[in-house]
């Protein structure tokens, strides 16, 4: 199989911008956005191995409340996939060989998408595609040539810098799948078509600084790193107090945490006539209006970044 690199990472564009880079370097040298010591460790008490069941039925989807039917009940992870979970998976998946680590990036097979030749559409043919890049400073996983391990302190944080291919492969390795956009949104909003419930966020219609991890939300991780901060442990906003920082309990109506903020979440839909994959939920790096449940983000499927993660869905009864 061929190895396609559909998309260059962000860093590959920079050589063309020498002047900009110099200026940026000059400005960036004013201060640092790295942890000076160990990152704070917080036990949220939320078990990332837990799943929530979401019933079948209608729900109001999107900003304009389009009534959408979910045919079958399904389950979704109540938290984002953590670094610990993804490291465990990689150690098993590389041994079992669906994921290959002969070269960097780590790749896996993908059967390809139908290509329509639509303007701006890119071909995604059958082949190996990147899942993650080892040694990427945005990632929280370390690889010593034999095993993957989590950088200390990030065990219960959401895994980031994983491509759509890598997220999909994780879910499918265990017999699960990425949620569709509709499944994701229903899990975030709850059953609202006839209830008059027009909530914009998983917990209601207003957002407080201590309810989700978003840009300039002043969580403990922003104290050192600035407004963009860092990922927060999964399920962080559950009403607990951490080192004097009181959070609000912010689950969705079905009990899912981090359905707003922390990291964008890949969804599984592959739409005709485009190669983009869609993300939901907003992240630590964007203002709160991006956390509204209907907000969409998209990227090419081999994009990876420090604010992009995922969670899985599965049919009811499937373990």
């Amino acid at each position: 199989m061929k190895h396609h690199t559909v998309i260059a990472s962000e860093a590959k564009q920079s050589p063309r911008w020498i002047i900009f880079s110099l200026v940026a370097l000059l400005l960036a040298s004013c201060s640092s956005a790295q942890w000076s010591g160990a990152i704070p460790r917080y036990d949220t008490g939320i078990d990332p191995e837990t799943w929530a069941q979401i019933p079948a039925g209608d729900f109001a989807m999107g900003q304009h409340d389009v009534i959408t039917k979910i045919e079958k009940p399904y389950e979704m992870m109540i938290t984002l996939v953590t670094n610990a979970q993804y490291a465990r998976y990689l150690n098993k998946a590389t041994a079992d060989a669906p994921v290959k680590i002969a070269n960097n990036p780590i790749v896996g097979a993908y059967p390809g998408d139908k290509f329509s030749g639509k303007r701006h559409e890119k071909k995604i043919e059958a082949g190996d595609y990147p899942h993650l890049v080892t040694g990427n400073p945005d990632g929280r996983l370390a690889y010593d040539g034999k095993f993957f391990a989590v950088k200390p302190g990030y065990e219960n944080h959401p895994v980031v810098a994983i491509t759509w291919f890598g997220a999909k492969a994780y879910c499918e390795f265990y017999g699960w799948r990425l949620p569709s956009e509709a499944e994701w949104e229903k899990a975030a909003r709850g059953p609202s078509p006839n209830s008059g419930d027009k909530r914009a966020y998983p917990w209601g219609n207003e957002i407080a600084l201590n309810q989700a991890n978003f840009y300039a939300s002043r969580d403990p991780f922003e104290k050192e790193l600035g407004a963009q901060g860092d990922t927060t442990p999964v399920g962080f906003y559950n009403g607990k107090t951490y080192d004097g920082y009181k959070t609000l309990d912010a689950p969705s109506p079905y009990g899912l945490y981090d359905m707003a903020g922390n990291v964008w979440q890949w969804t599984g839909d592959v739409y005709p006539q485009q190669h983009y994959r869609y993300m939901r939920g907003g992240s630590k790096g964007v203002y709160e209006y991006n956390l509204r449940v209907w907000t969409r983000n998209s990227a090419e499927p081999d994009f990876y970044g420090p604010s992009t993660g995922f969670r899985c869905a599965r049919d009811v009864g499937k373990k």
Partner: protein
Amino acid sequence: MLTKRFNFLFTSTKGLVLVAIALISLETAIWGMLSGPMAELGIRDIVVRATGMILQPVEREGRIVMLYHSIAMAVIAIEVYIITAILPMKRDAQTTINSTITVGYITAQICGMVFAYFGRNWIFHGLFLFGQSLIFFAGIKLAFALNPWNKDYAISDPAYSRTKSGMNLERAAFFTMAIATLGSALFGAIPGSYSGNGFETFLAEDVIREPHKDALQLAVIGHLHIMLTLIAVALALIVGRWLDFKGKLHQVAMPMMIGGTIIITLGVWLVVPFEEIAHNFIYVGSVFILLSALFLVIFGFDQLIRERLAEQKIAKANFVQKLGALLHDPLKFGALWQMVYMNFVVTFIGIFMAIRLDKIIRVWPQREERVTLTGHWHILAAICATIILLYYADLIGLKGKARQWFGWLIIIPADIAFGAVAFFSTKRLYISESAQQPLVDTLMLISDAGLATVLVTLALLLVWRLVDLFKAKGKWSQELEEASR
């Protein structure tokens, strides 16, 4: 005495422009506190509580659309006031156009904001539409008044661009712009009337990657682009008249401006049925308009240097003397310079984005692309605003040190801010997300400081004019007297 002040503010060109600038400034000052760093600092929450604003998350896009419109209407009104003052037309035409648009934009601006931010009372939405309708009606009257085929406005001076029959091609360019604006307003009003009822609004930057945009979405995207373009075209023509643009460059520039305006407008309208080829029209029209503006800048710079050197009685000037002469009047130089600078922070970036769209821009997440788009047009709109302010300062006869201070305090901080915003909006080209925070903080600080300086400078001017209004024989009374002559 109140009647006299009312007459000054609402019948004289200088008064009308002052009122519109003041209203835009007030709106910008209040609503500017609802986003960005002001929101981060908690100022937004204070403003919302103090004013009783109701900010439902689901209505955000609708609110923003109305905010943009309410500011744009006032800007268009300012341009209309200036056009009716600088182009020959019947006095009653000028009076009816100005009075109609004044009632229109103030109604649209105030009622639009009350509807969008204070509880969605539909009576105010109706008044917002009524106000916009009045503006449209004033536009029709303006187009009639500008009719370039009217023999009364034929010209014989060969220094100005004209046809063999004497038609004034500069007037024709204004007329073309007015007709194009009316058509493009309808082009936006149709989808607006369908999806702008507060329930199905969207921002263009949120649908850019949709492979299938419906006709109404395409019309909205086209509308916002062409309206801003036409505001800029009108402004370039106004600056041309201000500097008495004439000669060979004028003779070339005016037909190009007319052709460019027609081509780009048709190109944008064609986006709905023929999206693929429409962009070719837009590119050609843009080149014509940009070249026309370039000719104005060349003429203007040359004229500024010549006139100043003549004042100084310098027959053979060296480079430094010429540069000094060019920079002598920051208001006139600034208006032209902003057109040049626009290319660095708007046009060239826009061309780069278009050329490298699939290779670079669309490799990024859509939210990153969105930042580049919003930064792009915010800068263009703000540059237009600075040119208007420089023009206004000249209009009211700012002289001496006040002229120098005002001019440079608008140009330099604004351009520093625009440069910082341009860097910010394209930051992903040269810095990764995880490393960006120090750069973002620095750029935000620079842009905020620059914009704050511009706003404080403008505020000082407005306070001076406000204080002047309380004087029995203030500047306002002279200006009213001049207007009634």
